[in-house]
């Protein structure tokens, strides 16, 4: 498998604060990569640098072998992004949100209509006509993912997609992520729910901007002789803090 994204010596500073400290990793085409770490570890910052929302302080990101910074316009077309808290417009209903995001992403009117029909088969149409601020978080998450996938992106960034929803919804959400993988998409998921990472092909653990662990979940457990990801995570973080 070839690398679809290569991250080299990536650093982000906000003033004197180092949010991401010289990290290196690759993402292979068609894999699910789990981004792990406590709040403020630098997960969102890294994602935003890769998808172009934040400027890079230093380092390099290659997507499909192209310099991400120089080919923003091209790359926008193959990337999908679902930000924290499912950022939909609370005063618009779901259909209007879909129409809006479809429209500003450059979809044709016909495609947007087709997408609207599609969602109507997935979610109760009554709920679709309610303003987003009044619908349950589970549905909001579903709509948000749908919006993210509307342009049929190759690489999908999901930033804390499962925060604030109940365990059942969370499980169903992961089935959908698997489904995406089967369709050949590359997926980067950040989360702080440790029990979720076992679904990922590979995980990265970030702490204070440093990349401290990288590998397959099963392999990592064997290597560090741990029973659960949780133990591994706690251990890695306390080790890193001592250094």
């Amino acid at each position: 498998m070839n690398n679809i994204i290569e991250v080299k010596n990536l650093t982000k500073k906000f003033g004197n604060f180092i949010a991401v400290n010289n990290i290196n990793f690759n993402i292979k085409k068609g894999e699910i990569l789990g981004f792990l770490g406590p709040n403020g570890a630098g997960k969102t910052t890294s994602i935003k640098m890769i998808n172009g929302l934040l400027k890079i302080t230093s380092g390099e990101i290659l997507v499909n072998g192209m310099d991400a910074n120089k080919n923003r316009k091209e790359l926008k077309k193959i990337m999908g992004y679902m930000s924290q808290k499912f950022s939909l417009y609370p005063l618009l209903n779901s259909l209007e949100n879909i129409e809006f995001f479809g429209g500003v992403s450059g979809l044709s009117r016909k495609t947007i209509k087709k997408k609207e029909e599609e969602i109507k088969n997935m979610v109760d149409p009554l709920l679709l006509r309610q303003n987003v601020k009044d619908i349950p978080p589970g549905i909001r998450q579903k709509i948000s993912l749908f919006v993210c996938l509307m342009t049929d992106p190759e690489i999908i960034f999901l930033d804390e997609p499962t925060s604030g929803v109940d365990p059942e919804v969370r499980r169903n959400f992961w089935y959908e992520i698997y489904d995406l993988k089967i369709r050949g998409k590359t997926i980067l998921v950040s989360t702080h729910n440790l029990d979720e990472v076992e679904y990922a092909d590979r995980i990265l653990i970030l702490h204070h901007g440093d990349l401290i662990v990288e590998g397959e979940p099963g392999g990592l457990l064997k290597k560090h002789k741990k029973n659960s990801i949780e133990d591994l995570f706690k251990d890695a973080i306390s080790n890193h803090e001592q250094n």
Partner: protein
Amino acid sequence: MRIFYLVKKEFIEIFRQKELLPLLFIAPIIQIILFGYIVKTDVENIPVEIINLSKNKTSYRIINRIKNTPLFNVKKISYKNRDSISTLKKGNIKAVIIFRDSFNKNKNILKYPEIQILMDGTDSNTSSIAAGYFNGILKKYILSDIEKMDKKLSIENKTLIRFNPALKSINYMGPGIVALLLTIVSLFLASASIVREKEQQTMDTLLISRLTSIEIYIGKALPIAIIGIINMSFSISVVMIWFKIPIRGNLFILFISAIIFLTAILSYGLLISTIVSTQQQALFFSWFSMITFILLSGLFTPTENIPSSLQFLVKINPLSYLIKIIREIFLKGNGIEYFYKDLLCLSFITILVISISISNFKRLISK
């Protein structure tokens, strides 16, 4: 085409805030009507107390005169000396007029009581006008007495009033208030529009879409501009129909000037919105700017009174130009040759603000 979706979304967001709609469209009209009646600084009905210690007949006649002028509202007449200072401190009475019998020793045939007027000087404007008026009333009274004695000498003041012959203040203030409401509505909407996206975390989604920064900027400004223009047309109609103020000049030039002004205010509002991080901060900034724009625009007080070291504040205030232009067009019916300089200055300010605003917005986008 993409921008159409953004404009549509902005409109839905505004129109779905049900409590906001009447505030945006009806409240301004009510305020115009209400304030149309207020804005006259003609001083009248000053509450006075009269203390008449004189038994002279003329004192009664002069008191009658005072009662009949619209300037004073005689609240109380007493015939004993009272603590006038305490009365004035309470603030319900603004002046105390005292008549005393201490005649001049001159050999004049006419005898007048000595008159003393105590004014509350807190409101400097009112008190100096009132004092002047009061002296005038008395002097005229004496002059008419003298005239009866056939010793007349009088100069008639024949005044011809141009542009607003009935001296109706609404004619002057009404058009200005239209400009004021245009400022309030558009500045406020613009200052909230970007920071709201930041607060509800939709900004990122907007930025990652195919929209270019200029498209986002225009998509934000356009709906507010449309609402502003609708609002202005409403309020101009109210001013023209309700207050029967004729528009003497060119309505087209008026709208062009208003649109230039609107562009400046919108870019300024979007600039605020780009800089701040919460809607509360946006509220404070736009509120502060609004009061400054209003008070330094010449709407309520002539700008000539501002000290020359601070005149630049008027010069950079876009509202001061619009108010001047609006008045030229409404009241005087002046053509563009009378205010092309103001229009040029306004346009210059607009270009300046818009370029600062856009460059700032671009910087926000590429953090």
